[in-house]
């Protein structure tokens, strides 16, 4: 076990420092103002920029922008920061040396822009056709997928254009403690660059001017963007996923429970650090958009699983917690179309840290507890369908499912009530049949119906397991469906695209799986006699 641990930490070390090391090497490379990448380097990622209603490091902003434009965090062989810098320098008539391409996803948008077969066009061509898109958006009245695609293409074109004329990259110009954010093209004057002392530590006078603005800004407004730069560079989601996967592998494949437990603790520790960073940067409870709730539910479910596992002296809890956390981390790593990792300002009504950190966290924890029951219920069904499971074991595991549902129900009841109190406190009504409210009550009611039925043995064990697996679909509806399918109401802050497809697939797979297990529902009756 020791060897695997050290091996693991080594890989973590390499993982953590490779990105930092690379940036250092780039910064010290000789710069050549005659050809790309000019003075653009990873080092510039540390500069503060005000975009999207807050101040953040260029690195974070560039990743969001490049991701939005290309769907990837690097393109044309450059990292996000360097790419962003090169595009911005076109505003100063320095050629980037490449043409950034736009991928047209929607067939009808391709038709609109000229050719059904052409799916990739240079962004410059898209900008030239922005008028066509704008008129089309104006013409369309139905808010369907096509209109969304047109709007997105138009927004991408506008953003690209704004970057290319050097207006998107803003720099702080200090006037005493007051800060004015001015675009790069206005900031990078000859005078400002030339007055730089060649003997400073900056590798070139451009860096000198840019970093001088940074340090002046920091004198009055702190260095939070530097912390966020470190936060962004560490790559928490991927590191967390790797550790959590290793823990799950240690538990299920290598059957090393102690190792799995240590790795689980490490995952929790890492995610705690992650949340501390995020709370520090955003100054609020880390449960304000879909992305954060997914991370938090996985995290809280793992903690709950470790807690229950400890007190119930039952190892299967750890399996449930790890399994669910891995799924959540997978989503945060790979489902960026649906879950946006960016930190953006909140709508005014949510700006209350006390209620955010009580109501929302409790509700998300309840989802986590229900998710634990869902994992185990499906595993039991899987075992019965494709393996063997005695009825006594089924009873034993259904008892664990029951425990998780109990936790989930107490938490969601508390969460609903806290939400009611918050609504009462800030809008003057305890209950208003808002879709999120209503769906959380539906979740509570369905699970309560199951618990009541189970309590009196009205629902037999084999049906209880199926119901537990199926009932989680209501949680998914409440959690994602209200935002992605119903998309209305006071809680619709987390809206983003692509969620409806994800949710539909989830419902389909879960339903098909349950139907598959129906013929085997009672197959253990024969074994009961032998057991």
């Amino acid at each position, binding site marked *: 076990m020791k060897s695997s641990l050290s091996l693991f930490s080594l890989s973590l070390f390499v993982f953590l420092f490779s990105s930092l090391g690379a940036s250092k090497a780039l910064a010290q490379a000789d710069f050549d103002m005659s050809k790309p990448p000019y003075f653009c380097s990873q080092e510039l990622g540390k500069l503060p920029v005000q975009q999207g209603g807050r101040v953040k490091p260029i690195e974070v902003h560039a990743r969001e922008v490049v991701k939005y434009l290309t769907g990837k965090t690097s393109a044309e062989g450059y990292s996000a920061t360097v790419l962003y810098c090169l595009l911005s320098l076109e505003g100063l008539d320095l050629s980037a040396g490449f043409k950034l391409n736009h991928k047209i996803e929607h067939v009808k948008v391709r038709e609109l822009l000229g050719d059904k077969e052409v799916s990739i066009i240079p962004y410059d061509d898209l900008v030239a056709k922005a008028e066509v898109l704008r008129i089309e958006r104006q013409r369309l009245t139905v808010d369907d997928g096509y209109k969304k695609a047109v709007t997105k293409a138009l927004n991408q074109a506008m953003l690209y254009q704004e970057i290319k004329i050097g207006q998107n990259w803003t720099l702080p110009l200090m006037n005493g403690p007051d800060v004015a954010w001015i675009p790069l093209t206005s900031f990078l004057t000859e005078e400002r660059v030339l007055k730089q002392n060649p003997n400073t530590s900056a590798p070139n006078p451009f860096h000198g001017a840019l970093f001088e603005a940074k340090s002046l800004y920091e004198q009055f407004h702190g260095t939070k963007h530097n912390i966020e730069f470190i936060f962004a560079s560490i790559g928490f989601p991927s590191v967390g996923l790797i550790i959590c996967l290793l823990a799950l592998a240690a538990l299920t494949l290598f059957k090393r429970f102690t190792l799995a437990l240590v790795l689980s603790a490490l995952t929790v520790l890492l995610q705690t650090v992650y949340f501390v960073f995020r709370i520090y940067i955003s100054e609020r409870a880390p449960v304000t958009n879909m992305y954060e709730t997914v991370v938090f539910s996985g995290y809280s479910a793992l903690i709950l699983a470790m807690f229950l596992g400890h007190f119930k002296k039952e190892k299967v809890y750890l399996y449930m917690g790890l399994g669910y956390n891995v799924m959540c981390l997978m989503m945060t790593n790979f489902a960026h179309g649906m879950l946006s990792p960016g930190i953006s300002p909140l709508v005014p009504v949510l700006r209350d840290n006390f209620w955010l950190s009580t109501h929302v966290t409790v509700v998300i924890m309840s989802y986590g507890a229900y998710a634990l029951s869902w994992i185990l219920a499906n595993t039991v069904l899987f075992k019965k369908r494709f393996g063997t499971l005695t009825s006594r074991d089924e009873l034993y595991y259904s008892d664990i499912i029951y425990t998780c549902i109990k936790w989930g129900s107490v938490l969601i009841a508390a969460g609903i009530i806290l939400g009611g109190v918050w609504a009462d406190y800030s809008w003057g009504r305890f209950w208003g049949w808002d879709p999120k409210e*209503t769906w959380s009550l539906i979740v509570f009611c369905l699970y309560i119906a199951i618990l009541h039925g189970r309590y009196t043995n009205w629902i037999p064990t084999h049906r209880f397991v199926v119901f537990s697996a199926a009932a989680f679909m209501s949680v998914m509806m409440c959690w994602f469906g209200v935002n992605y399918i119903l998309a*209305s*109401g006071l809680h619709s802050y987390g809206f983003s695209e692509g969620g409806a497809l994800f949710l539909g697939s989830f419902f389909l797979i879960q339903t098909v799986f349950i139907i598959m297990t129906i013929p085997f529902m009672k197959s253990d009756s024969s074994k009961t006699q032998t057991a």
Partner: protein
Amino acid sequence: MALNYQKIERTLGGLKLAVILILLFSLMMTIGTFVESYYGTEFANRVLYKRFPFMFLQFGMFVSIFFAAFVRLPPKKRLYGFYTIHSGLIMIACGSFITWYAGIDGNVLLHPNEPARMVYLDQDVFKLNFPDEGLAVEKRLPYRAFSTTIDASYEGLTLKQYFPYADLQLVWESSNRAPSEVALPSIQHSTQYMLYNENVSEEMLMSLHPEAIQFESSLSMGPLSLHYLPGPLVECFNHTNESKLIIWNSFSRTCTTPEELGIQVQQTSSGNRFLVMKDKESVYSFFPEHSPYPLSADFNSVLREAPVRLFNRALFETEPHLFLFGKSVAYFDREQEKWITSTYDESVSSHISLPWMGLKIALIRHEESLVPKRRPIAVLPIQKNNELIQGRERALEIQAQDQSFWVTNNEPLSLMINGRRVEIYLTKETLTLPFEFVLTEFKMDTDPGTANPASFESFVKLFTSEGAHNHHIFMNNPLKHEGFTFYQASYSQNPNTGLYSSTLSANVDQGRFLKYLGSLFLVLGSAWHYQITKKNKRLTPSSPLIAGLQSSVTDEKPTSGVQS
């Protein structure tokens, strides 16, 4: 008999009924959320949440919860948690009932520096005002989601149909009045236009028809002013005379200029231009900088009925003004420094480009004599982004003296019935507060570098019998006064003045304490319940679920049931 009592109580308090009710409740709520997402919150309330079947179901759940606890009396120690949960639920139900029965939930609209003491409630009402007699009648309209026939009469008016959700549809009708006997009929054309650019589009209908009371002949859209004028007047804008004055004769429908008529434009000692012209027997004096109407020869009266008017085009050259003449338009182009007139050609999609913000104006329909009217039609509402995009009007059909009229919430009706003047309003029920508010300041902060609101706050002055107090109301910081609680709900901005108005939600909730206490009981009770009923007997699996995951507890005697 005693046996029957017990039987009924056991059925009502039974788990089967409970589970059936819970599932039915969940099903109805599921339907409700979908209805809500398509048709809007208010529609869902009107069709489901605040209707008898759903409320009766909730009452059924209340009965079930009550009897479930009742049949399990006298108290048993292992059920203490259970009793707590159920009494909590009963308290919440009672508290909600009190709120529903006696609570107040409305809105107060505060305009800057205007005192307000009206709370607008949810109930639709119609009001009849007889201003001459000081008589007022107010009646509640049914709380329905679909159109309903009312058939009730008040003061000689019969209420016919009521549409809780309606849209106004444009209809063109022929005039009710007999055609004029005058050789030259009056000009009464109407035109529908679309004004648009890359970002916005606005349809508008302008009319000169005397019966088209719902439509204007002048509009302003931000800085742009639109003037709808009789078609032949377009000729006036083709003149390039130096004085920029045009003389319009509305009898002969001809346009001339002082230059053409050889009239000299003179100046007063204070520098104002004036001119005197003779038309047939009359002498008119004009002061073009001040009025298009002539003064009488002795300067004592304004002759509004005179057939001759004087337009000073110079007045319309600094700001954007668009003159519409049905099939033609005229405007002053500041770059070319001249007046441009253009006429639509016959093609359907013809448009005219304007020199402001890339605006274009297209002609949609032009009618010489038909009357445009907006008629309400009943529709299903559609909600998008928390706002109704269809069915925003409420409309009521009223019959008076064999004629039918429509009154909507946005358009009150004024009628003469048997010589009595009557005003008819479709509005919300109001409640008058025993105190008064004035919005002294409204503050909105935005996120840095964006236009997204970060917070909005109302500074109000509250006038009570004890004097005036200043209060600061913002999100998550309501004002409590005399049993009312006022919350910052929303705001709006007057597009002309730029001043903000604030909407507070006003609330009285007598059931609050009971609901909170019940909630506390519910949560603590369920935790307690699961603590008490925690199994002390444990099972062990014969084989681990995941290979290698052997449970760490030692085997104990297996039991058959989960719990008893």
